[in-house]
Every structure is written in structure tokens, then in C-alpha cells.
């Protein structure tokens, strides 16, 4: 890069490589372009899956069949789950913002293995195509639920094998992304950036990446075993052939519980970037947040049994898994306290990313505290497999991960595209999204407590009020989402030109042009201090003394 000092580099969006147009994008190994490739795919699939969710909510506004039959409904919630889980929330924050921001945040020019990174994206697309095919091929959409519980999934005549293969391939894509990030963080930090001078989003990604690498293979082999069961009639999980259906649940949740942390840890990381920037103040308790990410990842690996309290697992393993589940709640609580303390004493500027971040904390708290009901053995018995779980899960995944995704999108949008969106429309879209979201999912807590089971196409009349409110909420939510998408897409070309540092952030990505040049940094920066360093040297010295 010796010539980079003489003439400035073009932005990664305009850079003309070997190929033009779309080919230039899908052959590019630039981490920023790959991030956008993921982003576009995720947005498209998100709207598909959200549409499925909306139709399900409308169908359920009245008991009985309105415009879709039970088989279609069962297919819809399965596909909604598969797309949302495997194609949106698992790759979501890690693959989009991880790819975009990780090298920028640690002062690197790319990830460790750029070609492998592109390969991950191709795997992702392959898996996505398989998942889409599973819907459209003869045989019908898979109707097993995204959890693929045997023996039902071993016997269902729908395209279960396609969906299983899709999940397997998507899992592989996730593993390779994780592998890439671990090596990137280890090997490519800018000079002087010790582990504890690294920003907290990379910390979160690091913890996430280890789960991706160490948990995903287990579900991979489990899905292969179900495929073998269907194709070769090897009865690993079929009781008629000596197999054990509960063993499937163990293996499935050994991955799929940590998968929740694959989703939420990067979300926490994004939030941790946003609070200090908009408070103009160092993050409170840097070490505690960094270590709690690792603690969540490690302990979270061993709590899978809490999905199976009613499956007939042994009494002592219930006791044990419940205990660990409560332990893993503590680091999450620590993070919340640190976020709100970061705002305390700051100079807070209200902008859309901060609004989304604050909503994240609120919704994540509701999701987290309702998780305690499910972790406690006695209340779990009442609430397991009811819409309470559905609501809890969506508060964590949509209210948590989803709102963090929106926060991150609004935060890094100027850096990604070099334009500003409209703040006013961002607030309006937020209003619809926030109100719609709560109206959609909060009633489900209450009918869940009253005993409304999940995955029900039809229900008894006493639960109608909840489903009715949910249906209205779903409309409002989708309206908000469309407004948000419109705001971002419309201003991508027409918005005001974004300055290099619109939020006055201090982390490395704000020190370069918006959008960043192809090689990110003309000169790799040398890091001397804490990543969240807002004041002058004197101010900080004074603060330390007092």
C-alpha cells in the first residue's frame, strides 16, 4: 500500500475491481461488500418471514379457520422459524455488522481469510436457496417446527430433508464466519491494541465466534442423523428401532440454546458501542462487560437442559440445569447495569440509534425477566410450550436482537453508505415498530399464563382477545418496518452527504472517511489507550484522581 499515501483511495462502494456491476459485488472479498451482501439477503428474507408471521397472526384473530388451513399454518410457522432463526438472526448481527465493523474497529484492512469470508456467504446463499426450495417443491412445506423434533420429523411426508440440509449448510456458513473472526481478532488487531484496549463489539463477536465454532457442529451431526433416519432407516431417535427421542432433544439444544447467545451477544456488543458514543463518555465497567460476554458464552453452553424440563429427563439434571440457567442470568444483569451507568453523567444526544438502543434495553429486560419464569422449575411446568415462551422468545430475539439490529443499522448507516437518513422518519418508524411489537407479543404472555399452548392453529374462545390484539399489533409492527426500510432505502441515494463522524464517535471506524476506502486505513493506526476515550488527557487525569 505504498502508493496509498500519494493519492487517496476510492470508497469501497465505487471501487472498480476486475468485474463490473453485480459481478463485482459477488466476487468481491472486501469485508464491507460482503457485509452488505449479507444485509440485502437478510432484509429480503426478513420481510418474507415477517409476512408469514403477519398472515399467521391475522389467521388467528378469530378462532377456527379463516383463510388458511391447518397444514398451511403448520408449514408457515415452520418456515417462519427456519428463515428467522437460521437465515436472519444467527447470521444477522455477526455477519452484517461483524463483517462491516470488526476490521474497522480493530484497525485491520480486512478479515483474516477474505476468500473464506466470501465462501461463507456463498454457503449462506446455498442454504437459503435450499430452504426456499423446501417450501416450493412438491411434497409441501416442512411442518415440523424449526426444532425438527423426532419422531414427528422422521415421519412427516413433507420436504423435511430439504429443510434439514438447508439448516446444515447454513450452520457451516456460520462456523466459517466464526472461525474467520476468531483468527481476525487474534492476529489482526492494530499495533498497541491489547485485548483490553479492544472495543467491546469485537469482544462480543469473539465470544460469539467460539460458540459458533464449538456448538454448531453438534447440531450439524444431529441433522445428519435425522436425514440418515429418514433415508437409511437407522433408528437413532426412533423408539420403534431402539432409538431415543429425548436424546435428539439433548443434541438439538446443545447447539440451539447456545445459538440464542450467538444471536444476542453481538446485539449486546452493538448496544455497548452506541451508549458511549451518544453519551460522549467512556463505557462504564469496560472489563465487566468484556468478561461477562465470555462468561455468558461459556456458561450458556451448558444450560441446554432447561428446554427439556418436562421431557422426562432425570430429576437431578433438571435441578442442575435450572441452577446453571440462573447463573447465566447474572452476567446479563451486569451488562444492563453497566449500560445505564454509561449514560449517567454523560452528555446525551437523542438520535435514532440511541432511541433503538434504549428500547433494546427495555425490551431485553422484559425478555430476560420472563426468562426467569421459565428457568424456575415450578413455573416452567406451567409455562413451557405455551405462548408465554413465544412471547419471551420474541422479546429476546426481536425486542433484543432485532432492535439491536435496527440500532446498529441506524448507527453505522452513514458509515456504510455515506449518506444520512431522515431522523424524523426514523422516529416515526420507531414509534410504529415499538408500539406494534409490544401489542403483538405482550398479550401472548398473559394468554400463555392462562394456558394457551403454542403452535396452535385453532384455540378455545377464552383466548381470543389476546390473539385479536396480537393481530392488530402485527399490522402496526409491519407498517413500522416498512416505514423504516423506506427511510433507509430512500435516503441511500438521496440523503444528505454524511460526514466522516456524524455521531462524534471515538472508535476507529469514525476516524476514516464515510464510506470507507477499499483498504480502510491509509495507515494502520497505533492504539495507545482505552477505545472509549472522549475527554482530553487532562480531563481524564482529573477524573481518575477524584
Amino acid at each position: 500500500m505504498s502508493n496509498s499515501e500519494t493519492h487517496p483511495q476510492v470508497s469501497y462502494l465505487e471501487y472498480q475491481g476486475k468485474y463490473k456491476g453485480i459481478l463485482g459485488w459477488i466476487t468481491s472479498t472486501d469485508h464491507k461488500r460482503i457485509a452488505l451482501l449479507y444485509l440485502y439477503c437478510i432484509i429480503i428474507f426478513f420481510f418474507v418471514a415477517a409476512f408469514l408471521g403477519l398472515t399467521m397472526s391475522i389467521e388467528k384473530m378469530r378462532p377456527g379457520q379463516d383463510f388458511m388451513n391447518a397444514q398451511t399454518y403448520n408449514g408457515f410457522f415452520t418456515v417462519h422459524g427456519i428463515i428467522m432463526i437460521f437465515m436472519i438472526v444467527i447470521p444477522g448481527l455477526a455477519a452484517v455488522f461483524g463483517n462491516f465493523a470488526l476490521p474497522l474497529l480493530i484497525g485491520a484492512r480486512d478479515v483474516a481469510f477474505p476468500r473464506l469470508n466470501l465462501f461463507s456467504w456463498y454457503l449462506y446463499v446455498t442454504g437459503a436457496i435450499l430452504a426456499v426450495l423446501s417450501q416450493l417443491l412438491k411434497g409441501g412445506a416442512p411442518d415440523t417446527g424449526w426444532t425438527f423434533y423426532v419422531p414427528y420429523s422422521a415421519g412427516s411426508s413433507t420436504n423435511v430433508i430439504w429443510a434439514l440440509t438447508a439448516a446444515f449448510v447454513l450452520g457451516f456458513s456460520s462456523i466459517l464466519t466464526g472461525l474467520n473472526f476468531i483468527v481476525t481478532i487474534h492476529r489482526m488487531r492494530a499495533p498497541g491494541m491489547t485485548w483490553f484496549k479492544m472495543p467491546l463489539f469485537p469482544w462480543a463477536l469473539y465470544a460469539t465466534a467460539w460458540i459458533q465454532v464449538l456448538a454448531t457442529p453438534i447440531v450439524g451431526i444431529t441433522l445428519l442423523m435425522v436425514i440418515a433416519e429418514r433415508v437409511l432407516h437407522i433408528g437413532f431417535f426412533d423408539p420403534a428401532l431402539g432409538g431415543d427421542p429425548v436424546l435428539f432433544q439433548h443434541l438439538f439444544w446443545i447447539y440451539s440454546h447456545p445459538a440464542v447467545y450467538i444471536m444476542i451477544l453481538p446485539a449486546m456488543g452493538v448496544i455497548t458501542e452506541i451508549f458511549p458514543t451518544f453519551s460522549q463518555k467512556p463505557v462504564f465497567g469496560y472489563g465487566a462487560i468484556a468478561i461477562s460476554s465470555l462468561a455468558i458464552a461459556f456458561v450458556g453452553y451448558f444450560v441446554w437442559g432447561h428446554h427439556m424440563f418436562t421431557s422426562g429427563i432425570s430429576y437431578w439434571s433438571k435441578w442442575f440445569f435450572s441452577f446453571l440457567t440462573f447463573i447465566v442470568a447474572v452476567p446479563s444483569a451486569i451488562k444492563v447495569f453497566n449500560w445505564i451507568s454509561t449514560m449517567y453523567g454523560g452528555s446525551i444526544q437523542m438520535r435514532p440509534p440511541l432511541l433503538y438502543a434504549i428500547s433494546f434495553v427495555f425490551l431485553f429486560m422484559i425478555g430476560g425477566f420472563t426468562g426467569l419464569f421459565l428457568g424456575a422449575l415450578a413455573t416452567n411446568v406451567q409455562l413451557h410450550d405455551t405462548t408465554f415462551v413465544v412471547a419471551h422468545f420474541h422479546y429476546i430475539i426481536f425486542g433484543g436482537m432485532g432492535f439491536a439490529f435496527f440500532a446498529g443499522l441506524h448507527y453505522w448507516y452513514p458509515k456504510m453508505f455515506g449518506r444520512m437518513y431522515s431522523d424524523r422518519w426514523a422516529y416515526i418508524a420507531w414509534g410504529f415498530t415499538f408500539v406494534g411489537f409490544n401489542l403483538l407479543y405482550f398479550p401472548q404472555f398473559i394468554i400463555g399464563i392462562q394456558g394457551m399452548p403454542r403452535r396452535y392453529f385453532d384455540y378455545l374462545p377464552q383466548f381470543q382477545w389476546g390473539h385479536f390484539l396480537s393481530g392488530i399489533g402485527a399490522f402496526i409492527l409491519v407498517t413500522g418496518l416498512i416505514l423504516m426500510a423506506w427511510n433507509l432505502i430512500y435516503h441511500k441515494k438521496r440523503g444528505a452527504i454524511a460526514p466522516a463522524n456524524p455521531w462524534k464517535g471515538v472508535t476507529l471506524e469514525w476516524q476514516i472517511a464515510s464510506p470507507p476506502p477499499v483498504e480502510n486505513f491509509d495507515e494502520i493506526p497505533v492504539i495507545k489507550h482505552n477505545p472509549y476515550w472522549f475527554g482530553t488527557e487532562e480531563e481524564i487525569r482529573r477524573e481518575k484522581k477524584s
Partner: protein
Amino acid sequence: MFEGASNLAAGVDRTFILILAIAVFFIVGITTFMIWTLFKYSRKKNIPARQFTGSVTLEIIWTVIPLILVMVIFFYGWKGYAPMRKVPADAMKVTAIGRMWQWSFDYGNGKLSKILVLPINKAVRMDLHSVDVNHGFFIPAFRVKEDVIPGYKNYLWFIPKYKGDYDIFCTSYCGLQHSGMNTKARVVENSVFVHWLDSLPVTGNIPDPEGLVLIKNSGCIACHSLDGAKLVGPSFQGVYGKKHIVVTDGKEVEKVVDDAYIATSIIDPGKDVVKGFNKGLMQSYRDKLTDAQIVQITDYLKTLSGK
């Protein structure tokens, strides 16, 4: 939560209220604090941000307090749950059978019902059995739920406290009509229950008597028919009490088939062989059947002779 109608509800509801109180306290507190900081430290006030980076004391406080709270919750959750796995010895037994997509309740002796009728204030143990895929047995009002998994022996128990009809749901997704897989639990006075059970027609299979199960499992019926047909060995039909000419040590003797004779024939089959059958074809069951099991077999053979 709405009123619980079983003995187990109190433990569940106590835990629920405890967590709810903690949750509301923190959610309201933290949200208020967040909104307050937004106004108090708004940039419009033009006060520079204070550049502090953390406090070890605070970190310790907000690690230890949540830790204590969650341990308390864990403890109550466990306390409320533990009794659910301790079935009283005198509990009435009902088997809940789940199949796609309906429940049936087996009261024993072939008495099957589509709804669950139970006497009030009497402990009932439900053994859960699935004939196809996973189901979940859930009675919200009683605060009981266990999965019904093929090949597994899962169970639950409770004491219904109030008369009335309660919903039963299937909570584990089981295919097309999963949402239609519900029925009622009806709690009635004991006398009503007894009457109902008596009038319940026998529609299910009556399980094999223990002796017959042993006979089948030991492979006896390969050579001894139950219907009088002559196979390798004498038929079991009417065999008890019958007079046989048997060959003992080469001599023909007449013997009545009684308890002792049957026991001898099982343990030492070559000793008294019925005339017309060959010696040495039957193996000894000396170590394979216990004395108690031989008595059960004998009892069953008696029923085949009408005795």
C-alpha cells in the same frame, strides 16, 4: 395467574408472584432511571460529560445482589417443583394415552374414556403413554404438564381440589390437528366417580394376566397351545386338574396335574413326561423363572381349566 385447582398450584403460584415482584421492580426502576438520565444529562444543557470509567464497588454490588436474587428464585422454583415428582403411594392410577390427535384415558380393565373424570380430593397418578409421536399433557388449572414421549415412562400426579370442568391441552407439537388435541378433565364427588366408572363400557384391551405374560415371554406357547391343539408338548387348555399317564423313570404312572406337578415340569421337564410326547425336547427353566413366577403361571393355568 388464575386460581389453581390442585394441591400443586400453591408452590407454582408462590414462585410466580416472587419473580413477578422482582421483575416489575427492576424493569420499572431501570426504565425510570434510563429516562431520567436522558433528561438530566441531555446535551442541550451543555454540561460536558464526566469521564469516569467504572467502579469496582458498584460492579461487585450488582453482581452479588442479582446472584442472591436468582438463587432465591431458583430455590423457590425447586421447592415448588419437588413435590410434583413425589407421588403418594395410595394414588389412583390412570394412564393417559396420546395419539394423533386425541387423548384417551385408561382406567384399567379395558375401561377407556375420552374425557378424564376424577374424584375430588384424591391423589391421582397419570402414567403417560404415546403410541406415535411426542405429545404434551397439560392441565393449566392444575399446574401440571409433562411430555408424552413414545418409548418413555413419564408421569405426573396431583390432587384435584375443586369440582368442575378443566381444559386439557396437547402442548408438544404433533402434526396437523395438534391444536384440536384437547379434552376436558371433570372433577366430581367420589360417589359420582364410582358410579361413572362402573357404567363405563369396556372398550379397550384387557391386559394379559401376569401368568400369561410370563408364558408368552418365556416362549412356552411355541410348544404348548392355549386352545387344545396338540403341538410338541401337551396343550395348556384344561391342563390343570387333569389326569395324565406320565412316564417317570421308564414306568407309566397316573398323575393329577397340580401345583407341584407344574412346578416339577417347569424346573425338571424330563422327570414326568406325558405319554405320547417325547422326552428331552424341553429345557429346564430352573434359573429363568422364580418360584413366585411359577406360582403366577400356575394360577393362570387354573383359569384355563375354569378353576
